[in-house]
């Protein structure tokens, strides 16, 4: 087994990335909260858009990374791919839960309910359960090599389900209500949204690297414990 560790150069880049992510997030929040005018129909509540949509985007990005890393792991059997997948899955679960919570907060004042069986909400909830299962497999498997192999399989099979779930849930509900669609927005709104999507994406890469470094340390600890 190759000994994975993090080089000092990567640590330097990591620090710079963190700084850029912080600056972008702060400016994104300032623009979204104070500079952009409130929505004509929804008022101040509409500002939730600038965190809800980026969080959802980040969740899907994170799970896509889990899928790619799982495939790479099964082909090359390099433990580093497994550690990146695990890190990305944790971030993905966190942001999926955040997406649902933010959406729920937004749904109450605009739709009048905390929860509705809208295709996107339902798919996101199922996505959350699938990847909670992924993390559960990881925590219930003791041997690192087996854990990597099994969770890679769960990461691939689970991701393949996402489009089918979305399609089936859309058909199931489409006769009742059309899925909520992004309305045509004013350019100022679009740019603010884009800025926040960028900020969340930078935060994702920062968190991923941070979690990966923890995973490397955990792995070294495990190996040392195994050696006695």
């Amino acid at each position, binding site marked *: 087994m190759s000994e994975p560790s993090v080089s000092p150069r990567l640590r330097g880049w990591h620090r710079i990335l963190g700084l850029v992510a912080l600056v972008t997030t702060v400016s994104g929040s300032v623009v979204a909260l104070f500079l952009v005018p409130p929505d004509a129909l929804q008022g101040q509540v509409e500002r939730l858009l600038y965190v809800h949509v980026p969080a959802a985007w980040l969740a899907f990005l994170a799970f896509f990374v889990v899928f790619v890393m799982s495939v790479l792991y099964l082909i090359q059997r390099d433990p580093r791919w497994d550690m990146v997948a695990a890190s990305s899955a944790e971030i993905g679960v966190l942001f999926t839960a955040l997406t649902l919570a933010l959406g729920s907060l937004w749904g109450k004042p605009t739709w009048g309910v905390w929860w509705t069986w809208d295709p996107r909400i339902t798919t996101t909830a199922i996505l959350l*359960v*699938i990847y909670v299962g992924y993390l559960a497999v990881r925590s219930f498997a003791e041997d690192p090599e087996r854990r990597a192999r099994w969770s890679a399989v*769960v990461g691939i099979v*689970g991701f393949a*389900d996402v489009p*089918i779930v979305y399609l089936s849930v859309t058909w199931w509900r489409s006769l009742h209500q059309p899925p909520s669609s992004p309305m045509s927005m004013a350019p100022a709104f679009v740019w603010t949204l884009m800025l926040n999507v960028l900020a969340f994406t930078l935060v994702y890469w920062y968190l991923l690297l941070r979690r990966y470094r923890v995973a490397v340390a955990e792995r070294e600890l495990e190996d040392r414990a195994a050696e006695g």
Partner: protein
Amino acid sequence: MEMWLRTWAILWKDILIEVRTKGTFNAMAFFAALILFIFSFAIGPDFELLRRIAAGLLWVGITFTGLLALARTYHSEELAGGLEALLLYPGEPRAIFLGKLIGNLMVLLVVEAILYPVAAVLFHMQLAGHVLPVAGIAVLGTFGFSVIGTFYSALTLHLRAREVMLPLLVLPLLVPVILGAVSATAALIDPSARGGVGGWVRLLIAFDVLYFVVCTWTFPVLLER
């Protein structure tokens, strides 16, 4: 050809064990019927309501019973290193998956052959005149269910807390299967029900084909030493 002989050997071994021990099948079929019975109590004697949600109740019953059956997929191999011995034989490990898959499919289809008439009586489901299409949908749904279940029951074999892990992993993936089977069945037996049957049937077929390919392809990875 050789692969099919192996698959048949695995399947026949399991059928012989089941027939000779008469262990679990009877209890499982009884459990399934009992679930439907309990639903009638939980929901009350409103026949209009029961008839409307019958397809959903039926598939919840099938899902619970199916999870019981699937958790026992590799039961006969668990003791005394049976699975290791099975893997030592030369040839494709995929034959193990296929044999177990067909076995699970058979068990579930027999359970369903009992459950559908029971549901028809208890919930006043109008099965007469739709027997073949309803059976076809049941086969499509059960195939997808069995593929996922047979696959994940091999994965959870060596996990801690696997009794919880199998449903936790399998149920979210089965959402399209359950939605498809319930919606198509409901649309068939209830003319006033919304939606067509064709789309759901295509969805079930797509699910079955996709997961049959993905699971058969990745199965050897699960059993590597």
